[in-house]
């Protein structure tokens, strides 16, 4: 379910780092929790974002949720697909519906992120947490 080559946040973003660039998206768990996604608000290319700070938002029919930057750096590309087809986030959150690409300013930050296995355990625990 959760690709091994990605790193994850507890706020349900993923980042796939190769070289000095990270592709960022939201997880399958996040899209399921949100429901029908109707709007994605992303920053412009050139914007500098800071790890843990909001870089944009995803809106479902029901509500709006922040997207937090999993790493710090400069936005070098924004996924144009999502401005016309936000529903793709429900269909392919780990693939075609990536959000932005970030040029990492502090590559060491990824050490603090979760592995696929840790994230799987984390959302498993979160889901289990509902059924106290």
């Amino acid at each position, binding site marked *: 379910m959760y690709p091994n080559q990605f790193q994850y946040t507890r706020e349900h973003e993923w980042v796939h780092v190769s070289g000095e660039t990270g592709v960022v998206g939201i997880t399958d768990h996040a899209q399921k929790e949100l429901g029908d996604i109707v709007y994605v608000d992303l920053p412009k290319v050139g914007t500098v974002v800071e790890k843990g700070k909001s870089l944009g938002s995803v809106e479902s029919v*029901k509500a709006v949720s922040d997207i937090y930057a999993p790493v710090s750096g400069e936005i070098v590309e924004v996924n144009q697909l999502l401005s016309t087809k936000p529903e793709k986030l429900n269909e392919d959150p780990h693939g075609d519906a990536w959000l932005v690409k970030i040029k990492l300013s502090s590559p060491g930050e990824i050490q603090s992120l979760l592995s696929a296995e840790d994230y799987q355990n984390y959302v498993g625990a979160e889901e289990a947490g509902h059924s106290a």
Partner: protein
Amino acid sequence: MTQPAAALKATPLNATHRKMGAKMVDFGGWDMPVQYSSILEEHHAVRKDVGLFDVSHMGEIEIRGAGAFALTDYVTTNSVAKLKIGQAQYSGLLYEHGGFVDDILVHKVAEDHYFVCVNASNQDKDYEHIAGLNRHNARVEFASERYAQLAIQGPKGLPTLQKLTKTGLAPIAYYHFTDGEVSGTKARIARTGYTGEDGFEIYIAPDQAPRIWHEILDAGQEFGIKPCGLGARNTLRLEAKMALYGHEIHASITPYEADLAWIVKLDKGDFIGKGALVKQKEQGITRKLVGFEMTGRGIGRDGYEVLLNSTAAGWVTSGGPSPTLNKNIGLCYLPTAHSKPGQRIEIMIRNQPVEAVTVPTPFYKRAK
């Protein structure tokens, strides 16, 4: 399977919703399904075919006896005298100062019997309010425990429900009801709803609700019925510009401000709130509920600030995507002078002003 937190109230269908995999949320202290499959799919099912909602969280209050008419008329804004037996009426329950205690549906069961359907989170307050004003020799009964309520909404609502009852449904006019049976159990069958679509709301014994729920789903299968949650109920009612307590109306809002002058009958006898409304009508209202459409990119949502010429001037009461119109719509309060359609406004969305324009309402009206 998850369980509701101890503090949350549950309808007789709670276990059914959980078994069927609905996503549950805390809705005003009730553990309710927000969606079954997808809010969009459920919304479209109601507009095109039929959807089934559990609305058993709604409250019921019965007013009976020789003084039933006098009390019901005294506590509500609409004219109870105009109601015929078997007719339902949308009305306001107000405080002396003219603000809403609740918005309600009054059903006239008999000359000396009114059946009032009220909002879930207001039911205790409503009962105390009405009972506290009872100087009319009426009997006021808090009856919510005796009823489960299901809403069968959409153009295929009638053929779906007709399969389960001998009562002829076609002759029941909009906002009328009849007492009959659904699938062998006593039911009050009302042609009412909160979706802007044709449909029915039935009131049945709570212990029958799970069986009837499944029978309606089976009966509606050939028409594409979908079980629906409160998410779709909200997008549907917003398109139809039906008020939601706590949003468009509350204790500080009067019917005139909420664009509900049609439920106020000043020419009837005295009623609670009349003095304040008479005065407000003379002086004119300073703010008014209006519809808007986003013209810029973004969704104006409940509570967001509304700007006129870059100055804070109002607030959004409800807002979101309209699945039928494929636009982002909402309702907001604006100064009366700027409440006509075509007014350019801005909505503060995450600290950015985004353009919108006021539009005529309702946003959606079904073809009759």
